[in-house]
């Protein structure tokens, strides 16, 4: 039975993400990583894909990592993690080492949904004992807000900008957890840092499970989504409350909603103050509301609050 995090007293106080990293003020990915590393502890190797987190935490000679950390490329965090996991297994078996480590591969949405998908698929299919964490800020934020296949419908990015002939992103984001589950992995879950205990318990379960596990974390980005820097956690919460980001886990094929939303907020409350959605017309908002309603139906969330 995995350790349960129920109250603040249960949360380890050590910081494995050191202060002084260069992530933007208000970056919720930083918050998420702090929470994740408290769960994984010092006996963890993190393999980062190129992206916001990698670049902002490893600018020579400053490293924000208080645990062993590796970055090799954009495409291959899952492949590098596979190599580390298997090599440690071999060395332990051949009595060339006495160490056992948790291996966490960490990629942004770009390095996971797009360029890193193949390596992730391979690593999951092969059954390596590791955790893949995707911190999803819904675009290639590090390089200046270009669209990824995790960019939601109608969001404006620099490579799918809203304009005279464009409504922004024209397709819906891929369902990463569904893709992961298609590989028969024993554990996959969604999370977001506004619900820290939910996130930490899921990370704990992911680490403890034997085999590959995937956590898809929504990490709102004030810079790219264009909202005030102090609102990151507010948006993280609002995504859940509208039903656009259901918090659930799937363990051994069985789905369980972990945060119920008895009365959902209308998506308008989530979309209205984000600069990337300011071009939305009523019909676009209706489209996004239908999607939220579909997700609510699929995952068993409550109905939308009555408008007063």
């Amino acid at each position, binding site marked *: 039975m995995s350790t349960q995090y129920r109250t603040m007293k249960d949360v380890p106080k050590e910081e494995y993400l050191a202060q002084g990293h260069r992530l933007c003020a208000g970056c919720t990915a930083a918050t998420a990583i702090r929470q994740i590393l408290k769960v994984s502890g010092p006996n963890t190797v993190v393999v980062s894909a190129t992206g916001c987190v990698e670049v902002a935490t490893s600018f020579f000679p400053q490293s924000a990592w208080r645990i*062993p950390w590796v970055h090799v*490329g954009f495409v291959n965090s899952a492949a590098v*993690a596979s190599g580390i996991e298997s090599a440690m297994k071999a060395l332990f078996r051949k009595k060339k080492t006495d160490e056992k480590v948790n291996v966490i591969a960490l990629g942004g949405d770009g390095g996971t949904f797009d360029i890193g998908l193949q390596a992730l698929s391979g690593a999951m299919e092969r059954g390596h004992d590791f955790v893949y964490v995707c911190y999803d800020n819904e675009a290639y934020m590090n390089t200046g807000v270009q669209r990824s296949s995790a960019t939601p419908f109608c969001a404006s990015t620099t490579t799918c900008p809203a304009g005279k002939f464009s409504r922004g992103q024209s397709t819906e984001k891929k369902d990463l957890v569904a893709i992961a589950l298609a590989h028969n992995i024993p554990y996959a879950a969604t999370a977001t840092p506004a619900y820290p205990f939910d996130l930490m318990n899921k990370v704990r379960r992911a680490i403890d499970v034997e085999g590959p596990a995937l956590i898809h974390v929504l990490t709102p980005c004030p810079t790219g989504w264009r909202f005030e820097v102090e609102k990151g956690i507010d948006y993280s919460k609002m995504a859940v409350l509208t039903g656009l980001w259901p918090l659930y886990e799937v363990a051994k094929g069985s789905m369980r909603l972990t945060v119920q939303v008895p009365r959902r907020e209308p998506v308008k409350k989530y979309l209205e103050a984000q600069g990337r959605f300011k071009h939305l017309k009523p019909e676009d908002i209706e489209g996004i509301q239908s999607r939220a309603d579909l997700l609510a139906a699929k995952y068993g969330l409550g109905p939308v609050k009555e408008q007063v």
Partner: protein
Amino acid sequence: MARVGLSGNYAIAYAVKMADVDLIAAYPITPQTTIVEKLSDFVANGELNAEYINVESEHSAMSACIGASLTGARVFTATSSQGLAYMHEVLFMASVLRTPIVLANVNRALSAPLNIWNDHSDAMAERDSGWIQFWASSAQEAFDTTVLAFKVAEETRLPVMVNIDGFIVSHTYEPVEMPGEDAIRSFIPSKAMLNRVSPRLSYSTGVVGPPEYYYEMKYQAVDAIERSRERIREMQATYNKAFGRDYGDTYGYFMEDADYALLTMGSMTGTARVVAEKLRSQGEKAGVVSIRTYRPFPSDILERLLRGVKSVGVMDRAVTPGGPVSPLLADLASCLYGFAERPVLQGFVAGLGGRDVTEDEFEMMYSKTKDAGKSGHAGQTVYVGLRE
């Protein structure tokens, strides 16, 4: 010492087994595949205690190898042509991150058009990657060079590529003398290297190197491969002594008094030798130089070997379209440029895409090289056997 009939690929597989690697991460591609199939067999039957990762691409193969190498494990992979090209970006990372990976590259032509047969375009495309490159011309050499590669990689902390010609060396069965496993293990002891991803150290590897630092970090790898030159020769000498071989960075055949020489790399050396013997019997002062260590380039040895030679015909099995000359000729010309006395260099491109290079064609190349030597200047690069 056992004497067994082995293909070049199997010779490499046996060398890897005897080296007691800890991890193999590989993706199949013709004509490398029988190496990894043999290794899978060894692992499946408990003859080799290693983790075998069936990666989903060559890019992931090299990436997994880097991850594994960082833990201090002994790591091997094999590829050819498109596979090597697919891992291109990761090769550059492996050298600067100083991961002692051994890669067997079974030389095959790069597409397009699709071609599974032998030429050197794949390895030539990676000559800037910072990898040490050895070239083996027979199954025996393939075995010995692979064993040596592990030692060189771990002592210099640089990745090493062992090249063998696709089908010609990889699939031809030849007698191979294999020392016992104990003898091999005493040359390359099976022990873990530093675990750079140990929580006891908590290092950060693969960092961002801004303009203030990139230059110095890259130079570390340049300096390392330069300094590896002497170390490689020392290790070759140790190997030769232990196992009764005679390996160096180059081979010279009949070079003591040669007037006109042919320079080759890989299995073409064999044909060149046969032709040189024939020419010698006709009174020609022919010689052959074969390069075994391509990176770091053995400039000093080549200069000494070619001193007093009137002309050298350089055989490239790859092209550099739009370049001044083909790759091997470019490297040789550069290393000889600074010397007041140097031979005339005649360029030849032959054997692309597995095209057979015949003894007659070698004789033609010798004859053109001799003409160049007599006249004092070379003609344009000759594309041997090209149909108009």
